[in-house]
């Protein structure tokens, strides 16, 4: 079976972003970019399913600016077989990404789509569920364990109260949580090999789907900052402060 893995290019998780002075967004110039960490987990899972003989091909897809190619090359270096870049001149919001992915799914006919549960820039946590809805496929979000066999997949999900296990017929959509796996580091030979793997570019506007943003950002501001408190000398002083100053005991 074929697995499709959408990967997003985002600000590296180590970067603490700054809000632009004109409040139009966050400063992205000269900021380190990387693959969304949940998408690395998604690629890793797909590659493991291929290594286990369950999957036959892993296709990575990224939607956005031409620089998303780097993200796709990173996915190819982990072990994806080929990549699709969908370019767009407009800002892509989750619903538009889901529509693009639906069009790609219709072309590629994968049995499984594995996405990240959330992109760490917009923190939306929407695209996987939206894609599943548009395709009328079952979904298992926040996966910490995936057992796929012919025609079926069993997924353990991280939920607020603990864990939940679902069984789904294929085709289906899965979104990854942190505990699903630990992505491998791409080795130098694999990075070199990735440069030769096929990467196809598609214009988003050619897919015949509505990409128009639905949400308008009116302003982006810094959150109120906490003022740093004090260091206490010992436990006795801590307890005294909590009782008499903060009055939380």
């Amino acid at each position, binding site marked *: 079976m074929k697995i499709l893995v959408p990967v997003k290019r985002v600000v590296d998780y180590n970067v603490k972003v700054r809000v632009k002075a004109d409040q139009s967004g966050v400063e992205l110039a000269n900021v380190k970019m990387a693959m969304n960490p949940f998408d690395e987990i998604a690629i890793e899972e797909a590659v493991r399913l291929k290594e286990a003989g369950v999957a036959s091909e892993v296709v990575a897809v990224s939607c956005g600016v031409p620089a998303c190619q780097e993200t796709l090359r990173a996915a190819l270096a982990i072990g994806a077989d080929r990549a699709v870049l969908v370019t767009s001149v407009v800002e892509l919001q989750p619903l538009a990404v889901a529509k693009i992915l639906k069009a790609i799914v219709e072309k590629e006919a994968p049995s499984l789509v594995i996405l990240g549960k959330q992109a760490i*820039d917009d923190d939306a946590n929407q695209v996987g569920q939206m894609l599943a809805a*548009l395709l009328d496929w079952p979904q298992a979000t926040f996966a910490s364990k995936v057992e796929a066999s012919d025609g079926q997949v069993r997924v353990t999900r991280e939920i607020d109260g603990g864990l939940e296990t679902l069984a789904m017929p294929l085709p289906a959509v899965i979104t990854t949580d942190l505990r699903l796996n630990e992505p491998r580091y791409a080795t130098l030979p694999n990075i070199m090999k990735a440069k030769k793997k096929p990467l196809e570019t598609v214009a988003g506007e050619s897919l015949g789907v509505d990409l128009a943003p639905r949400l308008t950002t009116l302003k982006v501001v810094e959150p109120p900052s*906490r003022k740093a408190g004090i260091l206490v000398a010992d436990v006795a002083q801590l307890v005294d402060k909590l009782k008499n100053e903060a009055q939380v005991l």
Partner: protein
Amino acid sequence: MTTLVIAEHDNASLRSTTRNAITAARRLDGEVHVLVAGGGCSAACEAAAGIEGVDKVLCADQPACTDQGAEALASLVVAMVKAGTVAYTHILAPASTFGKNVTPRVAALLDVAQVSDVVAIEDANTYVRPIYAGNALATVRSDDGIQVLTVRTTAFDAAADGAAAPVEAVSIEAAAGGSSLVGRQLTESARPELGAAKTIVSGGRGLGNGDNFQALLEPLADRLGAALGASRAAVDAGFVPNDYQVGQTGKIVAPQLYVAVGISGAIQHLAGMKDSKVIVAINKDPEAPIFQVADYGLVGDLFDVVPQLTAALG
């Protein structure tokens, strides 16, 4: 204007997140209807009908909804909206794993955007939400005909009891979902729920292992009547179950008192707890970033400090 709140419940009782969502719904003008979809959920329906500000409870007690799968619930909500008996303007659920699972499906089927993790409602189509692990707050406007939102529970108080709203059975049937429930392993705990706790004791990698986590933090949490939380590193290392994780991609909490023990204070962790009223940090590294947000920091070895603190509270 009428808002439909999708209730989170376990058939027998409502989760407190539903009460936070109802408070958010009341910030919008117009009526508040609460959909309780489940199997054998009449007790949860009754509970919803008693909450202040609720105008009507819609009770969908159907086999297809028993396991509250996303496919079934989304199909039901969309069918109710399309039936048009009530012209819903807003659909709202808590930004819990439950809400996050269901509402984007609803939004996509209605061909509208979703606004996730709303922390403030400015008017009927303008909302504030954190982005980039809470390092920025965006004000966004949606021009879609129906507004689908998930709301951050820590940003809205839990609505209290104080109403006797009518309960109506939903005659529309949910479509059976493609996924089926195999089982649930819920973490049993006598402690308060993380999301609703007044005090939280949270542990990180500094605890070293699960036995230390238990031996040191359980007695402290007992003394404080606190819930237990953890950093991602502590969960990944298997000290505690996944549902303890506080942070950008775990639970968002805002208790009166948050005690961080052996946690460095990575931005992803801070994203989940920096709205706590009082933060205490115990860490042996004076440079740990957690001290930049802590009201009271204690530099020291947690293996000495925590037992002392537990004893001092005795």
